[in-house]
């Protein structure tokens, strides 16, 4: 299991085209960013929760992957409740901290929003192979192959950064500058290897570019694709579901008269 070849359990969602997953995540996010109210976010979250059963993530994997969102959402929520714009009845006050009906509602809306936008994003990403995503971006969305494949190849170098960083840190210790010096010493220990890492990475990147060029990459001739990336009926269904979630969320919020268009 690694960044570029994640172990993805076969599931309905995993078989879908990454481009359609990306589209759905974008549609839902855009719809939820148009308003700050708890109803639209709550409805979207409920509908998404039903879909998450098909994503094929095990319980352990699901909680591990989505942990950042579960931590971020309550924190954003509490912060808004305590410090958000006050309106309505005052519920609680301590110094300049005040909790009002308005700020409590705002806090709930923010928390639900972080979850409703974050969860599908992470789950869809966890079931997507970067190579498949690149194939989709280039073949379906027709993004320039030079850009897409260059990025994909570059991503592979990230794993090597970690190895290099480890060696660079050990080497500093071996050379007598691995500890001491207080804050300045610590700063030097961070920026020193960072510079070496930059030099080493640029060097490696240019070697990779040569190897790719030698295999015909980067010419203006048309290229073929060994892996076919297609937008199938199932993908159309997924995108439709995305639209349904977005419109239902907006519709229910308008009906409940909680919808507040941020640009209005």
């Amino acid at each position, binding site marked *: 299991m*690694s960044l*570029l*070849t994640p172990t993805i359990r076969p599931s309905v969602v995993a*078989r879908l085209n990454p481009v359609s997953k990306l589209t759905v995540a974008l549609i839902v996010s855009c719809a939820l960013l148009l308003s700050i109210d708890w109803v639209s976010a709550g409805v979207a979250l409920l509908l998404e929760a039903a879909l998450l059963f098909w994503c094929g993530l095990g319980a352990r994997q699901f909680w591990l992957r989505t942990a950042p969102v579960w931590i971020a959402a309550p924190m954003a929520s509490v912060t808004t409740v305590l410090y958000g714009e006050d309106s309505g009845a005052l519920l609680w006050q301590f110094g300049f901290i005040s909790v009002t009906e308005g700020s409590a509602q705002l806090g709930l809306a923010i928390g639900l929003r972080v979850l409703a936008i974050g969860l599908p994003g992470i789950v869809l990403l966890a079931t997507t192979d*970067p*190579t498949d995503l690149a*194939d989709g971006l280039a073949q379906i969305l027709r993004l320039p192959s030079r850009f897409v*494949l260059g990025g*994909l*190849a570059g991503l*592979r170098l990230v*794993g*090597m950064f*970690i190895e*290099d960083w480890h*060696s*660079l840190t*050990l*080497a*500093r*210790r*071996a*050379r*007598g*500058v*691995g*500890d*001491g010096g207080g804050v300045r010493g610590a700063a030097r220990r961070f920026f*020193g290897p960072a510079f*070496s890492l930059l*030099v*080493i990475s640029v*060097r*490696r990147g240019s*070697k*990779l570019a*040569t*190897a*790719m*060029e*030698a*295999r*015909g*990459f980067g*010419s203006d*001739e*048309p*290229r*073929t*694709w*060994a*892996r*076919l*990336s*297609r937008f199938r009926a199932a993908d159309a269904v997924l995108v439709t579901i995305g639209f349904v979630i977005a419109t239902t969320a907006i519709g229910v919020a308008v009906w409940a008269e909680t919808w507040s268009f941020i640009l209005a």
Partner: protein
Amino acid sequence: MPETSPIPHGRDPRIPAVRVPSALIRNPQIRAAHIRASDWGWRHAGRHNQAVSGLDLQIEPGERVLLLGASGAGKSTLVHALAGVLGDAEDGDETGSLLIDGHRAAEARGRVGLVLQDPDSQVVLARVGDDVAFGCENFAVPRAEIWPRVRQALTEVGLDLPLDHPTSSLSGGQKQRLALAGVLAMRPGLLLLDEPTANLDPGGVIDVRDAVVRSLDHSGATLVVIEHRVEVWQDVVDRVIVLDPTGGVLADGPTREILSSQGERLAQAGVWVPARPPRFPTRHPIRHPETLLRAEGLAVGRVPFGRRTASVVADGITFDLRAGTATVVTGPNGAGKSTLALTLAGLLKPAGGALRASDDFSAGIPAEPHRWRSKQLLTRIGTVFQDPEHQFLAATVRDDLLIGPRALGLSVAEQSTRVGDLMHRLRLDHLADANPFTLSGGEKRRMSVATVLATRPRLLVLDEPTFGQDSRTWQELVILLAEQLDEGTALVAVTHDAQFVSALADEEYRLGMPDSIRLGADAR
């Protein structure tokens, strides 16, 4: 293998299970390439000197050529030019002509396949099959034809792996064979290899060499290979061309003839000529070597990214490191040799067992090296890393060498005396103001050893010190280390290099093997 079977391990519907006419698989219509250089030359942009000049040569289709020459003779430049990756007028000035089958080399891409030295920087994609297919895609090979080609190329190089096997889990030798497969799938008429085995262990070297031979026997393509370890390729090639650093060709002819007539000259230029092995230094062992560091049931491992406990790669390691004694650690790839070296050097915490310094060696600080402070390591243990670039800290060679002595708080006079002596001894004087990152491979290695010797540690730990070095640097390094041993420094080196073991080792510890071997003075 049935001729028309669908592709094995095909991942889901995106890879079509195409049936291909067997003729395509068995008899690829590869035309071997012809090379002609007429008064050809190249000067890299921003450089004063020509990298190559006045080159006249002709290579017939199907010939197998070993390209030799001193470092800086322009071997890589020529090979890059043939591969069409030197760039255009912005990147340098071209003179004369370099033709492949009568076309300019820069326009003959696709006829030419290139494999470079560094295994890690040639892998393009995350899965084996996709990576091999990459070249075919760029040259617009129809999808139905790509996968049979991929499968055949993988068979030719002997990589029997599923197409969706992650490339990140391959060994160095496997990565080089993958790069070769990626090139072979393009069906080139000219195969160019730029030191393809310099960074590999002995097993990997043979695997790659054999894969090349197998594919050439199959395709009949022309071969040009650069490699300073002549032994690996001498029985494969039928012609040797030696480039002259001052321009043109120094010698050109049948392998045996050139190696005997030019052997002495090549050996002096750092080429490993089998008939002229480097000399081993005479050792003067010290009398009663005391034990500096003792490993007892030591287990070593690294803490994986994001984890708290180390995963053990080797355990049950027991030996003593003694003053004036060279201990080498050998063993197959992945046995944990480098991890052991880093642990002995006090850089990694042991994963189990004990590693303790003698009272005399630790001299008043705790016995466990990993608990020593960074500065306390300086006079006790010096570590030479596998990749010299990892240990460079300053912008010039001199400043970098001064870091250790300065950290020890030596007087300014003493600092400059030590560093001056070392630079002179290791022929780095003329590079004092150069940036360490711009040095050649041999210079980097010498410099990385110098940084360690500057603080005069009593124990030297070296990780593959002779990897990819030419015979001249090798010789210098071995003599220098022998001197340190004679003066009573303890040495432990992780290595694959059998010659290094023969030249220096007093004791050999085989990791992943049942027992270690004690080599007496007479065994050497």
